[in-house]
């Protein structure tokens, strides 16, 4: 545990990528095998199932440290992280009576897993023992964190992949492929996880996604339009459809296995050849006609997908790339040729659930720019521009693939509530609720957390601290005075919101210091936007 706590501290204590990789490398060289596997699992978002609720943790901490629950909650709202809050409070109130114990990381994880069916008393004893025996605040923090959340400490999967590549000697792309996918950290060994042999057996594995950067320069800088393949940039869920050994798998870009969520795709089992991996977009659509994304949200969170949901929010797969054919890795074949193969394969499926993402033909960039204005009508967010000669790379890379998005919709609104953020925004009011005018009233219609610079956030934070009116738990109502331009990608009807609308990807695009709260947009304006873009 000490070594892992040390790693967490080192990772937290540097902002430099190279130093982070070096720290991970060092850890992977020295730690025991079981711990290493768990660290890979934790840093790639594979936390074991939670066996103790945060409510229980809070209660026990409150009791153990003799502080009232409300005070613990205040601390939590300021620190922004429950594991850290508890670690700090426990550290502050305890004088180490017991000799410190340093079990390895996997011991604690295995204990937590085995506590699933234990009595509350046993769970409590284990937590209290941990708090009493672990020496530093970081060790206590990590201990709590094993239960209560993901490790957001500035380590991307990519960083870890690089460190593992250095330790094992395999290429980063191979490592990324190996650790994405289905494996059980409780049973796999470090060598199995990183060895080729076992990965052959694991037929579900997706390829790491190739991601595009937004186009920042003028589109003409890309050279001749003839070198580029142009498609709509779909507003769905990026995914891979895999058929191997007569099994079908659907992966999201977040490397989450989503096969069960899209039973419609089982149709592909009949028609796709074994050893096929397609990259594409999961879209709510009637065959080739996309529907508003808001419909997707009605089925995404569901555990069981029944017939009614499939009828109300049908999905198609808009395929735009082929990564594996006949069991052979196709990623190094130029896009143009991959596309031909893709078209052949999609033609085989003969179901409206499988669509080919159409190619858009324009004589020049100017014409394309014209066409871009129609994106919203196609439920697209703009274009994807892909170099015809490009291979399928790993991760976000510049040069060959670009997303050329349309300008977002905007509306001016006034901030009415504020709440403190978490992580690097702890103890800062960074989460705001905005309202538009409706006659004399202000109607809340969206929250937004992003888009301001650190300096602007600091100013707004100071405003909130001096202009808070009322307190509702962690939320402050503030004087409706600060006006922001809210940018968003789409708008839809919502029964859950008082305003009657729900926005897609709202963020603060500008602080309108030139505008007064009386000059903001109205509910009527929002409804007009809904009329134009939301149907």
């Amino acid at each position: 545990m000490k070594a892992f706590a040390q790693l967490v501290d080192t990772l937290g204590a540097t902002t430099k990528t190279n130093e982070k990789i070096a720290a991970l490398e060092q850890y992977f060289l020295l730690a025991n095998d079981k711990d290493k596997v768990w660290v890979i699992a934790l840093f790639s978002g594979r936390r074991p199932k939670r066996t103790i609720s945060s409510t229980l943790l809070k209660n026990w901490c409150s009791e153990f440290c003799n502080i009232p629950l409300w005070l613990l909650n205040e601390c939590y709202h300021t620190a922004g992280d429950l594991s850290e809050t508890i670690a700090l409070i426990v550290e502050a109130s305890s004088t180490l009576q017991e000799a410190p114990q340093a079990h390895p990381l996997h011991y604690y994880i295995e204990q937590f897993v085995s506590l699933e069916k234990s009595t509350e008393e046993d769970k409590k004893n284990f937590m209290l023992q941990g708090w009493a025996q672990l020496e530093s605040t970081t060790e206590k923090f990590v201990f709590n964190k094993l239960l209560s959340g993901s490790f957001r400490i500035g380590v991307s999967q990519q960083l870890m992949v690089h460190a593992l590549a250095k330790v094992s000697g395999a290429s980063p792309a191979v490592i990324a492929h190996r650790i994405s996918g289905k494996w059980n950290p409780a049973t796999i060994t470090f060598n199995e996880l990183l060895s080729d042999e076992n990965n052959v057996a694991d037929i579900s594995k997706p390829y790491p996604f190739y991601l595009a950067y937004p186009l920042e320069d003028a589109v003409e800088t890309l050279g001749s339009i003839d070198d580029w393949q142009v498609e709509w940039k779909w507003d769905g869920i990026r995914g891979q459809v895999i058929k191997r050994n007569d099994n079908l798998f659907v992966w999201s870009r977040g490397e989450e296995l989503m096969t069960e969520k899209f039973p419609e795709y089982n149709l592909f089992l009949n028609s796709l050849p074994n050893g096929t991996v397609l990259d594409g977009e999961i879209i709510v659509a009637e065959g080739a006609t996309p529907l508003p994304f808001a419909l997707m949200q009605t089925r995404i969170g569901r555990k069981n997908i029944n017939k009614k949901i499939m009828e109300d929010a049908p999905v198609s797969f808009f395929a735009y790339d082929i990564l594996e054919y006949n069991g052979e890795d196709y990623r190094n074949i130029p896009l143009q040729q991959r596309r031909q193969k893709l078209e052949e394969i999609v033609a085989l499926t003969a179901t409206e659930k499988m669509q080919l993402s159409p190619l858009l033909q324009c004589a020049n960039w100017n014409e394309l720019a014209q066409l871009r204005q129609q994106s919203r009508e196609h439920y697209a967010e703009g274009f994807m521009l892909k170099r015809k000669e490009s291979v399928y790379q790993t991760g976000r890379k510049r040069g060959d693939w670009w997303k050329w998005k349309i300008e977002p919709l905007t509306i001016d609104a006034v901030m009415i509530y504020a709440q403190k953020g978490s992580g690097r925004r702890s103890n800062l009011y960074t989460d705001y609720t905005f309202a538009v005018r409706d006659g004399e009233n202000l109607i809340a219609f969206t929250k937004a957390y992003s888009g301001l610079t650190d300096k602007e956030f600091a100013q707004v934070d100071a405003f909130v601290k001096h202009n808070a009116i009322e307190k509702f738990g962690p939320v402050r109502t503030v004087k409706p005075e600060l006006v922001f331009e809210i940018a968003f990608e789409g708008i839809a009807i919502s029964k859950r919101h008082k305003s009657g609308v729900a926005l897609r990807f709202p963020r603060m695009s500008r602080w309108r210091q030139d505008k007064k709260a009386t000059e903001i947009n109205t509910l009527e304006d929002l409804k007009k936007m809904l009329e134009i873009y939301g149907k």
Partner: protein
Amino acid sequence: MFPLIQFTEKGLYCTAGDFYIDPWKPVDKAIITHAHSDHAIAGSKKYLCHTLTKPILQLRLGEGVYETTEWNKAHFINGVKISLHPAGHIIGSSQVRLEYKGEVWVFSGDYKTEDDGISGAYEPVKCNTFITESTFGLPIYKWKPQQQIYAGIQNWVLQNRVEEKTSVLIAYSLGKAQRVLDALKDVTDTVFAHGAIYNMQQVIEKLGYNFVNVQRITPETTKQELKNAIVIAPPSADGTTWMKKFNPYRLGVCSGWMQVRGNMRRRNADKGFVLSDHCDWDGLVSSVKATGAEKVFVTHGFQAVFSKYLNENGIEAEEVKTQYGIEEEENTSEQKIELL
């Protein structure tokens, strides 16, 4: 009858004595607890402060009428008995005790309970009514002993030297910088300083505090001189191009806010040293109890939380809004505003 101290729009006002304590607007008579900018503003006709505070006020506010006093010495204004008592916050920092017709009020100013060896050891003062700050009024704020933090700073600097990196420590020019210099005297003879810290240090040295040789960083200071050196800079310099000269360097931020990981990440610091000139939670609670006050007013910081806690524990408390707490160092958000 008016209470002995009223909270007015200019600041804390003593009706019977007709004077203010730490006003945030110019007044006729101002008693100053300490020289931080949120407690001492220019433009008042007369000031009363501790002897050690006067030269710092002169540096920051310019010339004026400054009457000085020592701790535990009685003064009378319109029949109100006034005395200053050590607050342990920074050099010269004082609590203000007022006594009138048998009633005693104490305003803490900013204070910390641990004796830092520089600021004078805090002494609890018995009173009927206590006005306390609450900058770090949450139980997550618990400070380690100063010796331990100093050792951390020293080890960090030595390690950076081994790795051939310059150590840049961010510390507010008045208060924190002196403690950091104090910590560094065991590992170095010379420290390079930003102009703001250098200027302050000139005044502090005249008051008899010599830690190490402090050299001002000027456009003439060469990169060679700064190689592997130790630099102290105020928060306002953090993130500016002025820092480029120190490359390669590591950045250490000295502040109580570094207690929480997210704050450290926000500052993009390589290292956070949890070094504060304010009370931690236990310090606040124990101080309030030690005053024996029947009534407590809680100012800048976590007023609502701390007063609720006191009320639940049988001490009548109320939160008060003041303009304090805008000291750049001790407020995470507002320290950045100063950059604008």
